[in-house]
């Protein structure tokens, strides 16, 4: 008897260890999911994967009832049918019955899933249609499934889907790209965004169905979204994102299998966890948005501000023309945070901006010219604030102190022009050239 959970069969004809078959099947599933998942994530339709994976159930049952088997072709036809139907129903409800789009999605998918459950109970009574198995999948049993062309059936099915997805992506790359980025433009130049939406939904449905048998619905839903979302954090080219998400899918399969064997637990579940862990790492360490990299960037910025404050302070002392020079200790005290200040001073020595003479700190020529630009920025900004924002004199130092670090040569020129070459700041001090 056909079942969704495969019964024990002889090993497939291609000789590989049990573990290799499992990892291969998991990896193929993840790749198939990641390929279409990227577009779900970019179109902000991540929940469609979840929804479709539930809605396909009645399609499978109907396909089974008509064909009397769980062969690949009827299964895929059922999936395509359901993919089209659900997309149509959701859109129609949203457009014509004016149901909000999230609600129409919720209504359509839950109802279809319920319909599927009812159909199973009513017509497929004799069949071992195991619901738990749909959730968790049965990766463990993959190596023992009937072989097709020497490959276990679930692996073969999934590979077919990988090829289909890949073919669609290659053929319709620019169409998918433009319709995901700018649906309006896409439609006006002849690539109907609605048609592309339907196509994508069909691919998602087919991918979901093909992957069900082996890995179950949890892994499918996760793999549609998680590797794609991880890749989105890590790169900013579409081709790179799709490639990386596929690689992340493979990595999740390998890591997940290894961890599941180690802890002796459900393999599909562990692969999902692995994908989640990779996502977590990306959130922490992504070079652009990672929490960790943001912290490092913030620290670098505060170090830069601190160094510049030290330079400007030395410059101002020099400017007063007194004989008194700051010692390193005094300088550290003046900027607060003593440890960071020590660090900042060290860098200033190293880059040759300050030097020590008789226990005092002195600007080198290089340091003096950096400091001059900074003080210039500060005073230009103060002058600008007084002249154009009408701030009183005692309110301009603080804001200028904050902004001075971000004013570059270009802006200094603009300010200079704006202030018509005014040579003094509002406190009557010279604006250095």
């Amino acid at each position, binding site marked *: 008897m056909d079942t969704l959970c495969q019964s024990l069969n002889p090993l497939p004809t291609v000789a590989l260890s049990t573990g290799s078959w499992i990892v291969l099947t998991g990896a193929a599933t993840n790749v198939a999911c990641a390929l279409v998942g990227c577009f779900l994530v970019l179109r902000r339709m991540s929940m469609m994967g979840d929804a479709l994976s539930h809605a396909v159930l009645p399609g499978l049952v109907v396909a089974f009832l008509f064909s009397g088997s769980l062969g690949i072709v009827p299964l895929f036809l059922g999936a395509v049918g359901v993919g089209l139907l659900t997309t149509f129903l959701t859109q129609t409800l949203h457009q014509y019955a004016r149901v909000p789009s999230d609600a129409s999605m919720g209504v359509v998918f839950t109802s279809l899933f319920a319909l599927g459950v009812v159909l199973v109970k009513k017509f497929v009574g004799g069949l071992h249609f195991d619901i738990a198995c749909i959730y968790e999948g049965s990766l463990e049993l993959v190596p023992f499934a009937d072989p097709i062309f020497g490959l276990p059936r679930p692996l073969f099915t999934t590979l077919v889907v990988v090829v289909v997805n890949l073919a669609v992506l290659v*053929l319709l790359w620019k169409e998918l790209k433009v319709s995901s*980025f*700018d649906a*309006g433009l896409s439609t006006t130049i002849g690539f109907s965004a609605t048609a592309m939406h339907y196509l994508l939904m069909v691919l998602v449905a087919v991918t979901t169905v093909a992957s069900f048998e082996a890995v179950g619905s949890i892994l499918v839903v996760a793999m549609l979204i998680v590797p794609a979302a991880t890749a989105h954090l890590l790169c900013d080219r579409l081709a790179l994102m799709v490639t990386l998400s596929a690689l992340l899918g493979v990595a999740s399969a390998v890591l997940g299998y290894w961890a599941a064997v180690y802890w002796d637990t459900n393999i599909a579940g562990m692969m999902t966890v692995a994908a989640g862990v990779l996502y977590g790492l990306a959130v922490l360490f992504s070079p652009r948005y990672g929490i960790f990299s943001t912290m490092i960037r913030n620290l670098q910025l505060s170090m830069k501000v601190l160094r510049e404050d030290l330079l400007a302070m030395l410059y101002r002392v020099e400017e007063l023309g007194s004989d008194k020079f700051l010692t390193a200790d005094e300088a550290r005290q003046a900027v607060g945070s003593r440890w960071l200040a020590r660090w900042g001073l060290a860098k200033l020595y190293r880059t040759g901006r300050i030097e020590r003479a008789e226990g005092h700190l002195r600007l080198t020529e290089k340091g003096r010219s950096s400091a001059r630009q900074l003080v210039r920025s500060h005073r230009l900004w103060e002058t600008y604030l007084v002249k154009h924002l009408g701030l009183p004199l005692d309110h301009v130092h603080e804001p200028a102190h904050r902004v001075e670090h971000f004013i570059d040569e270009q802006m200094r020129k603009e300010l200079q022009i704006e202030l018509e070459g005014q040579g003094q700041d509002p406190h009557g001090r010279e604006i250095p050239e």
Partner: protein
Amino acid sequence: MSKTAFEIHDMTVAYHRRPVLWDIDFELPEGKLVGIVGPNGAGKTTLIKAALGLVPLASGKVEIYGKSYQEQRHLVGYVPQRESVDWDFPVTVRDVVLMGTYGRLGWFRRPGRAERDIADRCLQQVGMASFAKRQIRQLSGGQQQRVFLARALAQEAQLYFLDEPFGGVDAATEVAIVELLHTLRSTGKTVLVVHHDIQTVREYFDYVILLNMRLVACGPVETTFTNENLQKTYGGRLTILDEAAEAMRQREPNR
């Protein structure tokens, strides 16, 4: 007498049966810069979307150089509102501009060297050549708008629709856009621009379409952009139109 580039016949557009544009009817000669002006909710964006076939018409028709939009797609360039897309999308500036060439390529064909050259040339025209390899997320609002304009240029169209290109851009970009409009006009293109700032209409445009759910006036700026017409456009909606629209939405006569 120059050719008619764009024509709308008795067009009504409705959302959920409630008309938002009533019986619009006008034609525009080739080679003009046309401002579409009206208060918020007047249907300016809807007018453009209807012309481009993005929203269905309840009645009437749209003609581009005498034929339907479907036949004349290749003659039309479109710049949607900047906010309508996700600027976090993983593409470069050049990728976005390349999308302008997709329509000409048709299904399945990939852009090649020739298309990349076009894209680079268009980027140069809007002064964004040095940004070609940047991720679009890193652009300022004005830069985003210029990229969109470059993409429209890459469409190499005859008739352009720009939805609020001046919205939230810096002064430099505004100047660049105006220059670009003049270049387009000098090469015989027709450009329709949804515009918010009535102060600059006289300065920027040759023609003006005054819109407030219905067409108030359409014609050369000197004769059409009058105080009287402006008053009609901005002096509140016509209550009768609103009532009729509401009645049609509820599908029963007002009692």
